[in-house]
Structures are given as structure tokens and as C-alpha cells.
């Protein structure tokens, strides 16, 4: 074994080089299958790009009559109000669920039950939830509120439960050892440790809810989404781009507020 013949080779994340190439080949094959599966062909793409350029021309400049502007403002306020209400209801409902979904505090059956609920809430896109809720309770902002509340519970309980799992059990044991009842243990041992994260998460979810509330209208659950869909269906593209601008603006403001508040709490 002559050591001087050794050459350096970059280490690989896979155990063997053959394995690496096999994985890469598999991924490439999968993408080719996907491209074939959705009927991707170059001429269609090229034609699409041409039409895209035309459409962009139709979009610009954004334009809305005073009546349309009024409608944007009204529906946008509705979206934001929906987000506000469902953030509060969602978080109120999340707190008990999060405690029940925390492995260190909750008995096993309850833990699995709540984890299951969280998985279901997170798996379904807001639009899917909205379409079902609209069928159940009818068109309008109520459907939006229920939808966003449901989505909030999944998101918030999951992250909040993880924060609860991360707490220092030593201080909980200390409170318990001092003779505290289960409620007191929760109030003095657990709650003080998670309050800062609670505030940060709430604001973060509020920000996401504002985004969501702008689209659930597409399936009839209230808010600006309905205006957007109608404008699209009437090919009123300057109006569409005015609505899009309004959405981007509101989302940006919400994101800014959320970022500032979270920075203060961390």
C-alpha cells in the first residue's frame, strides 16, 4: 500500500459514490417523468411567454374607477377584520389544545388525539377548508372566520406545544414540590416560561392570517378574494392589478408590524 498514491476526494453526504449517482439519476428521471406528465413542451411555453407579455401590458397601469376603489377598500377592511377576529378565536382555542399536545404535560392518549387534530388542520390548505365551511355555513365572512380559526389552531398549537415541551421542567418541579395544585403548577411553573414566545407567535400568526384572509374569498368565504375573482372573470385586468397592489400593500404592512413586534419580544 503506497500512501503517496492517495488523492483527496471531496466527502459526500451519501455513503458511497455509486449511491450518490443513483440518487441523482433517480431525481433527474423523476423530473423528466413530471415534465412528461404535465405535458410540458417547449412550443407551449414559448407561446405562453408571449401571451404573458401581452397580459402584463393589459395589467399596466393599474386602474380602478372611484366605485371600484371603494369596493377594494370595503372588502379589504372585511379581510383584515376577518383576520383579527380569527386570530383571537384561533389563539383562544389553541391554548388548551397546545397544553394537551405537549408531551411533557399531557397523558399519552390525549397527546395523540391532539397531535392528530393538529396534523389534520395543517395538512389541508385554507382554500380546501374554506370550500367545505362555505358548504356548511354559507357564503360570507363567517365561513372565512371559521376557516382561518381552524388553520390558526393547527399552526399555533403545534408551535406553542413545541415551546411548552422545551421549557425547563426543573422550575415546574420546584413549584410542584412547594405544594402547588395542578392549576397553580401551570400558572406559576409553566406560563411564565412561555409568555414571550406566546406573544411572538400570536403576532406571527396574525400576519399569516392577514395573507390568508385575502384569498379565501376566491371560494366565497368573504374578503377581497371575491372581488379579485370577479375582476379576473370579467377580464378587467387594470382593476385586477389594482386589487393585487392593494393586497401586496396590506401584506407588507402586516409583515412589517409583525417583524417589529417580534423583534421587541425576542
Amino acid at each position, binding site marked *: 500500500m503506497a500512501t503517496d498514491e492517495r488523492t483527496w476526494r471531496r466527502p459526500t*453526504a451519501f455513503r458511497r459514490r455509486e449511491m450518490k449517482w443513483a440518487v441523482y439519476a433517480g431525481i433527474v428521471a*423523476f*423530473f423528466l*417523468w*413530471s*415534465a412528461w*406528465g*404535465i*405535458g*410540458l413542451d417547449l412550443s*407551449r*411555453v414559448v407561446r*405562453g411567454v408571449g*401571451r*404573458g407579455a401581452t*397580459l402584463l401590458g393589459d395589467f399596466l397601469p393599474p386602474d380602478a374607477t372611484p366605485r371600484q376603489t371603494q369596493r377594494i377598500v370595503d372588502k379589504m*377592511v*372585511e379581510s*383584515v*377584520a*376577518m383576520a*383579527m*377576529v380569527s386570530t*383571537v378565536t384561533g389563539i383562544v382555542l389553541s391554548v388548551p389544545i397546545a397544553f394537551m399536545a405537549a408531551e411533557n404535560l399531557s397523558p399519552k392518549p390525549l397527546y395523540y388525539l391532539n397531535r392528530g387534530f393538529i*396534523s*389534520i388542520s395543517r*395538512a*389541508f*390548505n385554507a*382554500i*380546501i377548508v374554506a*370550500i*367545505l*365551511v362555505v*358548504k*356548511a*355555513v354559507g357564503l*360570507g*365572512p*363567517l365561513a372565512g*372566520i*371559521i376557516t382561518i380559526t381552524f388553520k390558526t389552531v393547527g399552526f399555533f398549537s403545534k408551535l406553542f406545544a413545541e415551546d411548552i415541551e422545551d421549557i425547563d421542567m426543573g422550575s415546574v418541579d420546584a413549584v410542584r414540590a412547594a405544594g402547588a395544585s395542578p392549576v397553580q403548577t401551570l400558572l406559576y411553573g409553566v406560563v411564565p416560561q412561555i409568555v414571550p414566545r406566546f406573544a411572538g407567535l400570536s403576532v406571527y400568526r396574525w400576519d399569516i392570517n392577514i*395573507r390568508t384572509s*385575502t*384569498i379565501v374569498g*376566491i*371560494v366565497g368565504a*368573504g374578503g377581497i378574494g371575491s372581488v*379579485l*375573482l370577479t375582476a*379576473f372573470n370579467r377580464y378587467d385586468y387594470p382593476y385586477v392589478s389594482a386589487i*393585487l397592489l392593494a*393586497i*401586496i400593500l396590506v*401584506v*407588507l404592512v402586516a409583515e412589517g408590524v409583525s417583524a417589529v413586534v417580534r423583534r421587541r419580544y425576542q
Partner: protein
Amino acid sequence: MAGTNETRTWQRFDRRRRFGRYLGWLAALIVFVASWRFLETGVTRPETIPREINDLLTRMYPPDVSYTAEIVRPLIETIHIAALGTAGALVLAVPVALLAAENTTPNAATYWLGKVIVTVSRSVNTIIWALIFVVVFGTGPLAGAVAIAFRSVGFLGKLIGEEIEEIDFGQVEAVRAAGASPTQLLLYGILPQVKPALVGLSVYRWDINVRDSTILGFVGAGGIGVQLFRAVNAFAWQSVATVLLVILGVVVVSEALSAYARSLVR
């Protein structure tokens, strides 16, 4: 001063901060109540809401197993859309990330261009992008894949950009000092440093895209959403349940796969 010492009690916050906290809670309450009243949801009997949702769930049970055969093809299409959309997004996001990172962007104008692309892409929801691309490419999965790609560019561009901002620039200087061209600089100076993040973030986004691609069918952009939409409109609740279960399965599997792949590169 010293004389009053014994009457002092420990408090977590001084009076001003406590006042601020109460004010915060009060403001939240006012916003909540005002929003609720503004929305005029017309819930005269709130107790009927759980009943109606419960009614919907009863009608879904048991899921129509025979419907599974019909949703295999749309399901595969959904997976194709998510995969191709993510691949497209990655191709588009790398240049955007280079523009949006302070240390690689050529000048202030390109920096802001990068930021604007990232912001617009992130603020516009997938379903709105889908609305736009259905006009451009016609109905079908191609529009869906492009919509997914455009939505993901912002996410990937932003996070990859942040990774690029954190690289060790010494290595880049070293490669440049060895006489590398800009392309070589990118390949040997920057890429190796962000590669784990690139892979991790792409897989993470792919996981999100699987969820997002399930709704594209609502606006005609292909995937399993078409079947879901059709079943909902036909009030075929047992078929709806089947579709929902299948979506749940796919989402859970993709989440597990994504978590596993990310644990490999970390």
C-alpha cells in the same frame, strides 16, 4: 428611602409597563369586538354552527372507497406539479438570491430589484398566481407548475439570499485571487458554502408545494383539486372524504420525506 424598604414588595413590571400591558389587552379586545360587529356575520344562533359542521362530517362517513381509482391520476399530476414547480423555482431563485444578498449584488439598483421580486412573489398567494397563469398557459397542470414556481421564488430567493449574506467572504476572495472568472467564483467560492442550505430549503419548499398544489384545481390549474372541487359541487360528500383522506396521506408522507432529507443535509 431606606425607611420604606420593608414595605416594598417584588413586582415583575413597574407601573408604566403594567399599564402598557393592560392597554395592549384592551386594544386587542376593542379591535376584536369592533371587527366582529363590522363583519355583520348575522350569526343569530351561534350554536347551529357546530351542528352544521357536524352534519357535514356525518355525510362524509364512510368515505367512498371505489372513488380512489379515479383520483390516482390527478394525484400523480399533483405530485408532478409540486416537483416541477419546485425545480423551476430553484432555477429562478438562485439569480434572485444573488441579487437580493447584500454581498453579491452588483449595485443598489439590483439589490432593490431582488428585494422587489422576492416581496411581490411572496405577497401573492399561489392561487392568485394560478389565476394569472391559467390566462397565460390555458387550463391544466402547466399553469399550476408555473404558479408554484413563481410563488416559491420569493421564499427561496429570500432565504437563500440570507444564507449567501452569511457566507465567509474570505473563501470567495481566495478563489478570486487565484484568477477565477465570475462563473467560477460562483461555482467554487459561493456555491459550496450554501449547498446544504440550498438542498434543505428546496426540500422544505417542495413539501409546502405539495400542500399548495392540491388547491390549484379550484381555478383550473390541474391536480387533485379539480376532483375535489367537482365532488364538492356535486354534494358527493363521501367522495370528498376519500379525496381529503388521500390528500392527508400524501401531505403526511411528503412531510416525513422532507424531514428525513433535511436531517441528512444538516
